[in-house]
């Protein structure tokens, strides 16, 4: 199990005006009081806009960066005191085409990185074959990486991230720039790693559907602070976004109209009617999903439903609201900023 408590990271930037100007010290609070937990077999999402602090968090958890304050442990190993031990049992996979040697083949890349983990040689060859199989690069294994497509390079990254058979895997935007089919394939890999191989996975991504599809639990991070947590659907509904229902019916009697107004009044829904040449469309927007009640009114009045569309709140909208405004969480953010002020002063 991975447990992180109150992790903070302050970057200190020395800035100089001109070549000989005075040096000023600028501090950036990249991560502010982040606590999170990952159990083996779980996929945890870390979502947030650019610069929110996701990569910094991952670098601290993989012992590449030392937290300014806070602590974390993985399977009982103290991450601050034993960074080298942590590095044995975690790995990071980053999206994009960097982090591998382009002039080496896939096999040579894996051999090199596996050697750095001090695996015995006889075991090394077997596990490299297995990895190449897993990411479907067996045929291209002996071709220089520079001739690979983006998707192939990304799959090699995954294999590289698995050379030490890590207990916890951190994926930093792993599907960046991949086409839909390959991204889907990659998501299947990720799910496989969690479900079948019991790895704890932390995933950051800008593709919200990906997080919705994969994550058991999501942390939303903004300006270094965790501003919301929950399952994907909990989060989607958390921001008081409305469910929109659009129905079209052949005609509208005043009786039906009255009934609809009544439920709208009870649930504080917004209603719009629009009479078209062949039908009437009704749109209702409310925090609760009123589909059942609406359908009941229509059918009990003998009105056939020609068309029905339900737009439920999506995680994406919730995230935009969380990160770019929305009064419900305003308080939360200002809270966090006052904390950050305290921490740096």
């Amino acid at each position, binding site marked *: 199990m991975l447990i992180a408590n109150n992790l903070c990271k302050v970057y200190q930037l020395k800035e100089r005006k001109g070549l000989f100007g005075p040096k000023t010290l600028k501090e950036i609070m990249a991560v502010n009081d982040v606590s999170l937990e990952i159990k083996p077999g779980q996929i945890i999402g870390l979502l947030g806009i650019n610069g929110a602090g996701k990569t910094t968090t991952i670098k601290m958890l993989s012992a*590449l960066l*030392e937290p300014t304050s806070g602590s974390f442990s993985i399977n009982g190993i103290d991450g601050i005191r034993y960074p080298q031990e942590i590095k044995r049992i975690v790995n990071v996979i980053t999206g994009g085409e960097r982090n591998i*040697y382009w002039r080496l083949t896939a096999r040579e890349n894996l*051999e090199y990185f596996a050697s*750095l983990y*001090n695996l015995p040689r006889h075991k090394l060859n077997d596990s490299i074959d297995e990895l190449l199989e897993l990411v479907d690069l067996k045929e291209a294994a002996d071709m220089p990486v520079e001739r690979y497509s983006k998707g192939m390079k990304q799959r090699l990254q995954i294999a*590289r991230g698995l050379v*030490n058979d890590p207990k916890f895997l951190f994926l930093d935007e792993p599907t960046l720039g991949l086409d839909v089919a390959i991204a889907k394939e990659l998501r299947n890999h990720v799910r496989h790693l969690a479900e079948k191989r019991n790895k704890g996975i932390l995933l950051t991504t800008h593709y919200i559907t990906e997080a919705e599809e994969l994550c058991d639990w999501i942390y939303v991070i903004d300006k270094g602070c965790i501003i919301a947590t929950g399952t994907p659907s909990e989060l989607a509904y958390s921001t008081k976004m409305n469910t929109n229902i659009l129905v079209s019916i052949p005609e509208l009697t005043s009786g039906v109209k009255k009934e609809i107004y009544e439920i709208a009044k009870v649930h504080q829904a917004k209603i719009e009617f629009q009479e078209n040449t062949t039908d009437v469309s009704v749109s209702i927007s409310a925090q609760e999903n009123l589909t059942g009640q609406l359908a009941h009114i229509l059918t009990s009045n003998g009105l056939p439903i020609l068309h029905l569309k339900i737009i439920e709140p999506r995680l994406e909208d919730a995230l935009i609201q969380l990160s770019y405004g929305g009064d419900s969480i305003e308080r939360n953010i200002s809270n966090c900023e006052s904390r950050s002020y305290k921490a740096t002063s």
Partner: protein
Amino acid sequence: MKEIFQIVRAEVIKQHRNSFHSYGVYFTLLIWPIVVFFNAYYSYKPFNLSQGPWNTFASQEDIIMFLITGFLGYISFKSLLQSAFYMGHERINGTLETIFLTPANRIAIIYGRAFGALIENIWMFSVFCVFVTVWIRRIPVESLIYIPISFIVLIVSAAVWGGLMNVIFLFSRDASFLMAVFDEPMILFSGVRMPTFVFPIWAKIISALFPLTYALMIVRPLLIEGSLSASLQGIYKLLISLLLIVSLTLWLLKKAEKNARKNGNFVFY
């Protein structure tokens, strides 16, 4: 120890794969050093060699030997500077950070890189040197052992030097000035082309900073005069110099990683 060996091995293989991708490499590794060597040789030829610093040498062959040992040493040291310079690419490619993501022994990586680069870069010119040595000296069988001894001295001191260069590039991404600082001055002050005893005192002080100076003090008596005793006085100087460099390297290495863990700067470029 086994771990260190494995990492060194991995680095050697990686560097080989990474650099041996075209025939152009053979040019820089063999033809270029030979051209530089002949260039030096023929610039001395028109002068009267029985005067000046050269009069301590007996013959033309001695001068060839003097120059060829000098250039072999120089090529070894220079190739390590280049390989350290390549560290900058690793930074850009993100592979540097990926290396530091592993728990691999950092010291092994630093010296593994150096050994890797060295073996890669000098084996061809070395073969040439051995060939020339045997051919012009007609070295007696009992002194053949001096050839491998000379190689070991050169390789060890170059690798120690390379370790330092690697760490300096690890520390700063703006270390390319080292190329300028160390390249030509090393030829001059280490006595690649002329014996250091002709230098004025200030130049001798600078020579003392380059371990190549001492390595050549050992190798040259061995191969030119075939005299072990004459080379002995260089040994303790070389050892002290290498010891100092290794300590500096280890200290900087520790500092570099600490710094990177604080500022996250292994990804800067």
